[in-house]
């Protein structure tokens, strides 16, 4: 009886192939936090309302709290921990969150940054209003969203300008 509740899940997490037994009822949030100590993945509601647990699965953002761990089989998962360079260098979007004072308590920050990564990697240019909509799956009670918007927009423009030069 008990064995049936566990299943081996093999997936790629932050570029590395990983394997672990998970409770079939566990969420991806649980697996990432408890089995892989990826504590950037935060729990704010555990029902997909706040966006604090957001991660990128095969290039697309998901609230990992309402994504079963067993669904991760064969998937490529990225969390905030993957963004730093080999010597801990910050990515441009992380630096922008610091520079634009877009961080306060910091609890919603990892989820927001991963949505920003999805937006930035699309290579598209969005208006401020479009960015608001794209980021609206995240709740933040500290910042009023203002500086988060600035951080994402400035990074987007910087990346687009760089691509243009290339």
């Amino acid at each position, binding site marked *: 009886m008990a064995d049936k509740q566990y299943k081996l899940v093999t997936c790629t997490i932050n570029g590395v192939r990983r394997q672990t037994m998970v409770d079939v009822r566990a969420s991806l949030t649980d697996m990432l936090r408890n089995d892989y100590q990826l*504590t*950037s993945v*935060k729990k*704010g509601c*555990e029902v997909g309302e706040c966006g604090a647990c957001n991660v990128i699965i095969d290039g697309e953002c998901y609230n990992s709290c309402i994504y079963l761990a067993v669904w991760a089989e064969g998937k490529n998962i990225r969390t905030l921990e993957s963004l730093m360079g080999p010597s801990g260098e910050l990515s441009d979007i992380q630096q922008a969150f*610091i520079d634009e004072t877009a961080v306060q308590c*910091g609890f919603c920050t990892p989820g927001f940054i991963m949505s920003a990564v999805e937006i930035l990697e699309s290579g598209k240019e969005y208006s401020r209003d479009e960015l608001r909509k794209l980021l609206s799956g995240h709740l933040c009670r500290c910042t*009023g969203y203002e500086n988060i918007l600035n951080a994402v927009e400035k990074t987007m423009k910087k990346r687009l300008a760089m691509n243009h030069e290339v």
Partner: protein
Amino acid sequence: MEEKGSVLGKSVKRVDAHDKVCGITKYTDDLCGKSLVARVLHSTIAHGRVLSIDCSEAEKIPGVVKIVTCFDAPKNYFPTAGHPWSTDPAHQDVADRLMLNEHVRLYGDDVAAVVAEDEVAAAQALRAIHVEYEEYPFVLDVQKAMEDGAPQLHEAFPNNILKHTSIRNGNYEEACKEPGLIKVEGWYDTPTVQHCHIENFICYAEMDKGRIVVTASTQIPHIVRRVVGQALGIPWGKVRVIKPYIGGGFGNKQDVLYEPLCAWLCTLVGGRRVKLDCTREETFVCNRVRHAIRGHIISWVRPDGTYAARKLELFSNQGAYASHGHSIAAKGMGAFPQMYPCPNVDADSYTVFTNRPAAGAMRGYGIPQAMFLFESHTDDVAKAIGMSPLEFRQKNLMPVGFTDAFSKNVLYTDSYNQCIDKARVYMDYDRKYKEYAQQEGPIRRGIGLAAFWYNTAVWPISLESSSCRMVLNQDGSVQVQVGETEIGQGADTTFTQMTADTLGIPLENVHVISCQDTDVTPFGTGAYASRQTYVAGFSIHQTALLLKERILDYAHELTRMPTAILDIVDGMIVRKTDLQVQMSLEELAMEALYSLSHSEHLTAESTYQIKSNAYSFGCTIAEVEVDIPACRATLLNVINVHDCGRLINPALAEAQVHGGMSMGIGYGLSEQLLFDEKTGRPLNNNLLDYKLSTFMDHPHLEAEFVENYEPTSVYGTKALGEPPVCSVAPAIRNAILQATGVAVNELPLNPHNLFRRFHEEGLV
């Protein structure tokens, strides 16, 4: 005052931002590791008594370790408010709490608790517990709860009145008989709302050598230690509380929540680690909420726009338990005779128990409610006497030199008018006010103004004291500890700037220890009352000077120069007379620690008791577009302007204002916790149905400042944490009034409430 090259007034980056953008900042759940899991069983009636609880089925569930019920809980009544202990028993907080309750007073009260090996077993056990209740009638409305014959929540408080206080200035009854006065009267109402920090309340407890160690997401670790001791009936020194980084607090965590229950459960399972992690649904109902306050105001005004007499009644909905109690309504009422001084004022405030969630501290502490009442009424008065809301305010707002006899607070500068003038310019207020004066048609615009009153810290109502410790390291850097807590607002960063400035060392050589531990952090009462920079400023300044004196004494030994001509500049010991560098602080620290002739660990520790506080004023101007047939108001433009003294870190200050404005917009337009009238059950205690402001719900948030150096503060600073939320909702309400001519006196200003009023006024 500010010196050239000072790090004060500079927008240095947050000291904790790097770790937060990397996801390596550790919050309570990140630190907990493997643990037992505690869950609480909540009542499914709003009022009644638990007759029996059958745990027999639940106990059979594999993984269940322990189940306790309200019949097992110790009967040590304790208070929960995050107030300093009062040495005067008459001034102590109401101790009406037990860890689990036989007499349940709200839908969601705590009646039993399960400790299990994992979440699943705990959840299954909760479902398998059977509770038999005797149901009592319940009451949700604050004024109905005061009526004779209303359901009684607490025996010691007849008519459910927790407290009633009054202000009697001059002679209201006589003054309102003056001939020619215009009477303006209104009722105003604010809803129950919740803090909605993104990290829910969480704590875990474990035993260590006979003591209980509680790690909690709290704003007030030293107060939690005291209350856990009170609740468990054990000496306070047997409790150690650790406060790591927290995912927001906003006042909810300025209350003792489930720390006592978690600590007690830990003692029942042999001291094993027990974690109690609230769900979002529990956070809404079983933590604290903002007091819903209803108010009745009568103003007697002369045709020239001066007040002859004023009367206020406040009815503050306390919910089921006392928590911060009457302090909130009292603070709100206290603003009434001060903001618009009038010689004849009668004011009464009542804090009343009802069968709703317990109300406690929330950002602004009664002032957002009071400002909605007072500033809505201010526009109503201006309209009644045919004066513009701006001119009426300019005529009546607290004048420079105003002194409050109780707090001894003085308005030193013309903050109100300076802030309003700055906001007017940004918003092009004067032109828009005229332009929007006469409108017809279904879509109309309006512009509204509201000011706010706030005072920093809690002196003289309560103790104000701050303690600081500084320790010099081998490399010339220092550790700094204070009892004031980082809760996301950026306190650690401003403390770093203050220390660097006063000690004369580079910012990167200041290490503020963010994690608080009641075993090692100097005593302090925590984060509340927008007091962090103000009160910690005194002890940081005093302690830095003390450490500096010790460093220079040691430098005197090494250099043979008198201390009077020595100073520390940018981490160097400098001879002031010729600015010659004598040695680096690092060289001095190494010598001091390792000298074979005179070894000394250079440290300093001191307490500063603060016996002052400071007004912190400002305003909001909001521009709205109202779609009358849709009964919808859209915020187009908004600005807050604050005078919070000298800005220690302008970028952080601006960010703080954004967050407060956002909370104010939610309060104004969308947020309310709803209850089923038939059962008392909360209807929308989740982030989908409770309409917290999202990215889509506000326009650009403009935050500006007027910087008048606060003369009572050692760094010229005063309250900013709470003030930004205070004047937003009434400004929106007043903008809707200008657009439509309709006074909507009940928050939130959502389509439901607008429809009711537009319908009454014949607009729809």
